[in-house]
């Protein structure tokens, strides 16, 4: 299953590119950036680097590719970067946060275990989302 992951990431990115109405001639760039970014993230996670840092580095790579695209084609980088980073969205962590939160709220008595679980998943989700957004925006830090 793992070997097909970049393909699925590309498919997810392509789907979002269509939703965001990315010009057809640039769809291929979205797919390429998504595959490169997702592959880098998978390699870094497998090599033992935490998922947050791996996501930050992969998103920074996509942001850099977006900047190069922007310089070369004279287009805003968002055209390819936003759809390309979508496959890195921490869907399972977000879902676990929701479920833990609902369980915590519906619990008749305060449960510190549920609270800790909710906080853990929420922090993971927030940090990964932050890493994605910061990574894409990071190349913009180079210029005033």
């Amino acid at each position, binding site marked *: *299953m793992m070997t*097909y*992951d970049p393909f*699925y*990431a590309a*498919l*997810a*990115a*392509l*789907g*979002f*590119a*269509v*939703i*965001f*109405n*990315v*010009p*057809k001639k*640039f769809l291929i760039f979205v797919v390429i950036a998504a595959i490169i970014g997702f592959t880098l993230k998978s390699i870094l996670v497998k090599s033992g680097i935490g998922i947050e840092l791996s996501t930050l580095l992969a998103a920074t790579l996509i942001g850099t590719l977006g900047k190069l695209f922007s310089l070369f084609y*004279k*287009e*805003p980088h*968002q*055209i390819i*970067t*936003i*759809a390309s*980073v*979508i*496959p890195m*969205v921490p*869907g*399972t962590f*977000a*879902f676990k946060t*929701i*479920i833990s*939160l*609902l*369980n915590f709220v519906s619990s008749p008595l305060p449960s510190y275990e549920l609270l800790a679980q909710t906080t853990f998943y929420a922090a993971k989700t927030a940090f990964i*989302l*932050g890493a*994605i*957004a*910061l990574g*894409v*925006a990071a190349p*913009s*830090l180079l210029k005033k």
Partner: protein
Amino acid sequence: MELSRDELKKIADTSLLIGKTMLESGAEISIVESSLCNMVQSFGCEKVNLSVLPKTISMTLVSGNEFRTKMIHIETFSPDMQKLSELYRITKNVTPECDPIAVLQETKKLLMYDQQFNALEKIFAAAFACAAFAALFQGSAVELMGAFVAAFLAMSLKKILDVRGFNPLLTTTAASLLATISVGALISLGILEENKIALASSVLFLVPGVQLINTFEDIIKGHYLSGLARGLHGLMISFSIVFGIAVGLKLIGGSIV
């Protein structure tokens, strides 16, 4: 050459419409600012003071002793990268010889264009994207199918509600509610056994990706107010997704958690 008050008005009308559409299409603040400044200076304005906020753009154009201040309200937010690309190209191609009215007409014509992907194609795209997410979460073939069906129905509902002008937060809540109920129905029918992957994947097309990324970009570039406002909007959309799932889970009982 000093521009007349009437010429300044035409330039302001043109640039404000372009700025408004760029913001509505998902541009970050600094791109809108730099595009509009370059454009009005290419038209021959000596000086431009520009304020781009999430809900308004106001500008003062100065030429010699004449000046003109105008403001425009930002209405909806709907990411459209094709429109953004075309508008960016228009602002880059303006030269001092260009007539502001011709640019305004070109912009208005652009706004009338049909999108390159129709609603059905976007619905299928969302469904395939969510099924791909289910695959990324190591889901089985049945879970992929479940995510596809739930996302297809939810996106269809979102499109219908969007067209009818419902509040985006309500639209998002309704879509995530329908996705949750759809997954619950597939479980009740015995088609799905494991449910978390299908449900987690089927609502991901609602994630406010453009807002979240623009938030950071705006804040990094010093547009704190706009960045925070966009971030708050993204957060509200995220809460809407959660609310829809929570209500859906309550409606279908304990079959999911």
